[in-house]
């Protein structure tokens, strides 16, 4: 998984802006997004799902949430 978005320490809407920007620009069909608040986790999930992506898994690593997101198959 090459593409990662590190939005830790940033407050909304920046994690969402960064994730959506990465989705728009990336050629990849999957990426990782790192956030560190529950609100950002929820907001990023909601936003990428509205773009036709899926949150595959959410892993908690200490204070960090690692979201694996994937472009949903058409």
């Amino acid at each position, binding site marked *: 998984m090459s593409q*990662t*978005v*590190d939005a*830790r*320490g*940033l*407050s*909304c*809407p*920046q994690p*969402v*802006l*960064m994730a*959506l920007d*990465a989705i728009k620009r990336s050629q990849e069909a999957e990426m990782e997004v*790192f956030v*560190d*608040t*529950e*609100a950002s986790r*929820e*907001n990023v999930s*909601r*936003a990428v799902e*509205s773009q036709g992506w899926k949150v595959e898994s959410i892993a908690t690593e200490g*204070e960090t949430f690692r979201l694996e997101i994937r472009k949903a198959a058409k």
Partner: protein
Amino acid sequence: MKNVFATRWGIIAVGAVIGAGAAMLQYLGNPGNMGICVACFERDIAGAVGFHRAAVVQYMRPEIIGFVLGSLAAALAFKEFRPRGGSAPIVRFFLGVFAMIGALVFLGCPWRAMLRLAGGDGNAILGLIGLVAGVWIGTRFLKKGYSLGRTQKLAPAAGWVLPAVFAALFVLMLIYPRAEGVEKTGILFYSVKGPGAMYAPLAVSVIAGLVIGFIAQRSRFCTMGAFRDLILFKQVHLFSGVVALVISAGLVNLILGQFQPGFAGQPVAHTQHVWNAMGMVLAGLAFALAGGCPGRQLFLSGEGDGDAAIFVLGMIVGAAVSHNFGLASSPAGVGPHGIAAVVIGLAVCLVIGFTMKQPQTGGAR
């Protein structure tokens, strides 16, 4: 664990509870169309501790204290208490100052703008237009990479500071309670007339504040984010919460006979349309640049966000500045220096918007 409050129906329910609760608080004694107003109530708290001496707006509003402590309880219960800070605190402080100055030119924060609308006050439409315009300007900056920078994780004590301050203010209020017709009990100031002398029973205010603080923390309810997300992402999630607030407050107002449509003679309001709008342009821009409406800043403070706490303190100082320097409006119209303050505030916010950026490090971890 699924957070039901963060679902579409969750945020709608939270908005509806806040709207109905605010209308009830007004019925039980809070000022007109001011069942809840975060800006006005923080201003009243500034008056209660003597930061300003505007005699008609001095009261230790328990709703605000409840907001912070209710959010703290929710954050602790759901393991979301995360002491953090260090994201340009001095900038956030002055965004708070100018947000308050703008709100007091309009006479209300976004919460009260909605409640004024729900009470039939047509001037609220101008305020809401201004709010949307201010938030829109903020979204332009966000799109261009505006950022106050990353927060740092802090030791737990840092997250407890603002909740402790508000808990202490509540204790002071119990030690030095309001007495009818008395302007000062011990060290606390009270209004004997005016909006500051209008309040719901203490227990009702505290419980309403705690409940709203709790559910707002869970749902991330935000009256600025509602418009920001709609403009920026065409996302209606938070917006559906504020729509629910206006509808439920309007319905309860109709039932209780509190709906009085019109422009002139509205409670704690003036009819200078341009400045009703411009005050909220300033407030909306400041809230957008700071990442949350005044309510959300209180709820974030409750979950340990020291940057939001700084913004709250900025608003309280801003209230003192507003009243001491003649910036705040009154039902007679804008204050003698209110217009100058709005112009200066907009200039400051624009400079902040243009200059605050941080190099993005999206790639490597």
